[in-house]
């Protein structure tokens, strides 16, 4: 049996062996990726199957995991349905609000929110005019519209001079339109920013405390699904403002539309 000398460049492996090793690694990587994609798809389908079999707890768990991995409007809609069937009104409303946050055109989520609020005698969040504007389009659409309109306006103002192209009337018109669109989109961005601080009470009869302490006096009790705006955070408590009063709730009792990094 002959032993081939190990070359320092290849680490002692022949090119064919390296090729095969690369191929195996590529196949394994592809299989892992495919398995992950399959697992992601399985979570959604698993949730659907569990929901249809009446196992709402398992359905909510599967949809919740899927929503964490890949937030999508349909997943969040189904998560809300499962939570509603479990009797978790607050979590259902939060999921449907998130579904509408991602896709304001999701009529099923809107219908379910109206249904849940009518059934549970809850009020809708009171939105300012710029927040209402921000709901007209998806959040990402507003961002891209603002970016494209701004750079289009800036480009059409500056580039003809730089490139020594004669300034045409349409340059001016498009630049003006771009600037107008950008300026008009600013309130929507403000609305998105403030709406991202909007939360919903998750547990029923959540106490609204006067101070951020466990022994604090209760101002009132909030119903599950009641909207509240995040104002400030302090030592595990969140200062919220509701339509009725302002006070502190435990952080885990409030679900924000956009989860906080804290």
């Amino acid at each position, binding site marked *: 049996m002959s032993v081939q000398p190990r070359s320092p460049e290849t680490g002692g492996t022949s090119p064919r062996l390296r090729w095969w090793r690369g191929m195996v690694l590529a196949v394994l990587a592809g299989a892992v990726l495919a398995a992950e994609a399959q697992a992601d798809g399985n979570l959604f389908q698993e949730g659907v199957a569990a929901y249809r079999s009446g196992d709402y707890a398992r359905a909510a768990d599967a949809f919740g995991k899927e929503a964490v991995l890949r*937030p999508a409007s349909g997943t969040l809609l189904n998560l809300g*349905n499962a939570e509603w069937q479990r009797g978790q009104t607050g979590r259902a409303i939060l999921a449907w609000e998130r579904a509408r946050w991602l*896709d304001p055109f999701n009529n099923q989520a809107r219908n379910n929110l109206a249904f849940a609020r009518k059934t549970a005698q809850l009020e809708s969040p009171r939105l300012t005019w710029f927040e209402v504007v921000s709901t007209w389009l998806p959040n990402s659409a507003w*961002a891209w519209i603002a970016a494209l309109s701004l750079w289009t306006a800036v480009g059409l103002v*500056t580039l003809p001079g730089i490139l020594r192209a004669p300034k045409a009337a349409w340059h001016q018109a498009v630049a003006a339109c771009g600037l107008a669109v950008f300026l008009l989109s600013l309130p929507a961005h403000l609305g998105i920013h403030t709406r991202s601080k909007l939360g919903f009470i998750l547990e029923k009869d959540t106490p609204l405390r006067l101070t951020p302490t466990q022994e604090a006096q209760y101002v009132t009790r909030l119903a599950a699904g009641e909207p509240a705006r995040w104002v400030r955070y302090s030592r595990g408590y969140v200062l919220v403002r509701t339509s009725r009063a302002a006070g502190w709730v435990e952080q885990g009792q409030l679900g924000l539309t*956009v989860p906080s990094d804290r």
Partner: protein
Amino acid sequence: MVMRSGVPGRRSGVRAPRRLRLIYRKFGQVAAWVALCAGLAQITVAQPTSPPPVRDPLMSLMMSQPRLELGPVRATAAFDPPVARPGMESVYRVTFNALEDMIKWPGEVPAPADLPLRAGAKGQILQMTGTNMQPRTTYNFRARAESPGRFTVPEFTVLVSGQPVVVPAASLEVMRDPPIPVTPPQMLILELPATNLFVGQSVTARILSPGLPGGVVQALAQAQINGQGLIMDQSASRQRIETVIRNGTAIPTYIFETLVTPIAAGKLSVFAQGYSVGNRFTGTIIIQGPAVIPGGLPQYTLVDSDPVELVVRPLPSEGKLPGFTGAVGSFTLEPPQLSSGRLQVGEPVRLTVRVRGSGNLARLVAPPAPRSSEWQVLAASGENIPPQVRQAQGFAVFHYTLVPLAEGERSTPPIPFCYFDPERETYVDLTIPSLPVVVESGRMAADRRPLAQARKLAARTEQDELALSGLSAAPGPAARSLKPLQQRVWFPLMHVGPGMVLLGLFLWDRRRRYLEQHPAIVWRRRARRALQRQRRALRRAVRRGDAGQFAVIGVSALKVASAPHYPAEPRALVGADILPLLPEADRAGAAGEAVRRVFAAADALEFGPTAPAWDSLLSLHPGLERALAILEAKL
């Protein structure tokens, strides 16, 4: 003494004594009172007498009940059977002579670690003790020991009405070969025709209480099925005793049948329980086959069954038809009947609908009255009969009252109705069909006219009724995060790119404009680059020893380095143009000599008839380099 004759008291010649007069007067008053009382008594007797007070029947019923005996609370605890084989189940039973609400049962029973107890039934029954009733509350636990030994549940304390009551210790002897025959504890058997159900699907559950050895059958009291998300229809229960073949043996068995309906989806765990009460049957019972009914006072023993797992699925939202009111089973509709086929506008008519079938017939809800602009349909009224009667008779009857609101109607409105068939797992249409009628003109009541107009509006609003949507079939386009783009780090950073590009373009344009105003900068830069190239070529020519190329390249380099100083086209320059650019000392020195000779050699090479002498031309390289360095420094 002088006596007067005549009537006493009468004024006469003889005056009665004073005492006698007083006696007469009193007698007269008494007689008057007696007469007055007698008259009043006559009047009173003449009037009708008031009836004696009648006791409230409910109060009478309550008062006729035996007294509840609540004496000192005692607890008993025992294993049934007290001797078992390894792996055999035994029932650990704790009984109090107290009401269930009085007992605060602890979370866990201090059982030995190798004798796990599983909670079973608990219940309360009132036991007759002579003329009184005594409450008995029992807690059952299943125990199973896998190895032989003596297992003792120590005594522990339970609070009853706030007072501690000691539950005595109880022991279970587990032996492989018990000295006496061991009979398993009396247990119930819960039988369900299916364990995979839909919400609202009623099934007949059977609670079987097998007879004891010797054919002794005991009745069950308070038989019930326990479990979350399930309702038991006591009104539809039946009981009988029949011989059941179990494990090849005919056993007289008490059977209690009832209807159960799951009302919550998911996995449900249910079990049956009841008190074996000997011969105390309540209600009608059918006995088939031989059975021995024990006599004497019953011993109330709480018995239960093993739990049964049910998988209850929600009714699918897909394919749901109009008019669904929760009917689950299999139903048929008899031809509906109308009380009259010829009507006038505003005249009510009665529509009778009879639904037959199996399923939750006892709780069948009539389909809602449809909204029509031509008819006013009042909500259905069912027959005023108990649910168990409806279940027993096998059909339900609904009565609708229809009022025509428009003339010329030819048929009654169809009433949407459907049921869910659990066998086929689909909704089945059972719409109550239209019936032909003739509606003639009549006097419509004034209050029905706005009703007719409101019908059309109501029909529209009905479409806007809210309901929970179905599931989304697909997740839809996924986002990376719920955080909006505006708040992500990369999005603002992304705009640095176009900004930098535009800034670069701006700076480039500014520089370009500056260079346009100062072209000498460009010329000098170009000259420096060209000079670098020529110097490299010059050195190559020197290395090759090519004097001709040396002269040509040297001249070209000198012209390129000198052109920006005039400015002029490099090719237009001659040696005399180069020399003034050199300092005075260099002009007279080696550099100036090299310039002159190189130009001479190049001119000779280009214009002369013969080749010039190259002997010492390459030796001019240092001088030429010096001249080029001086010119480059000036650029």
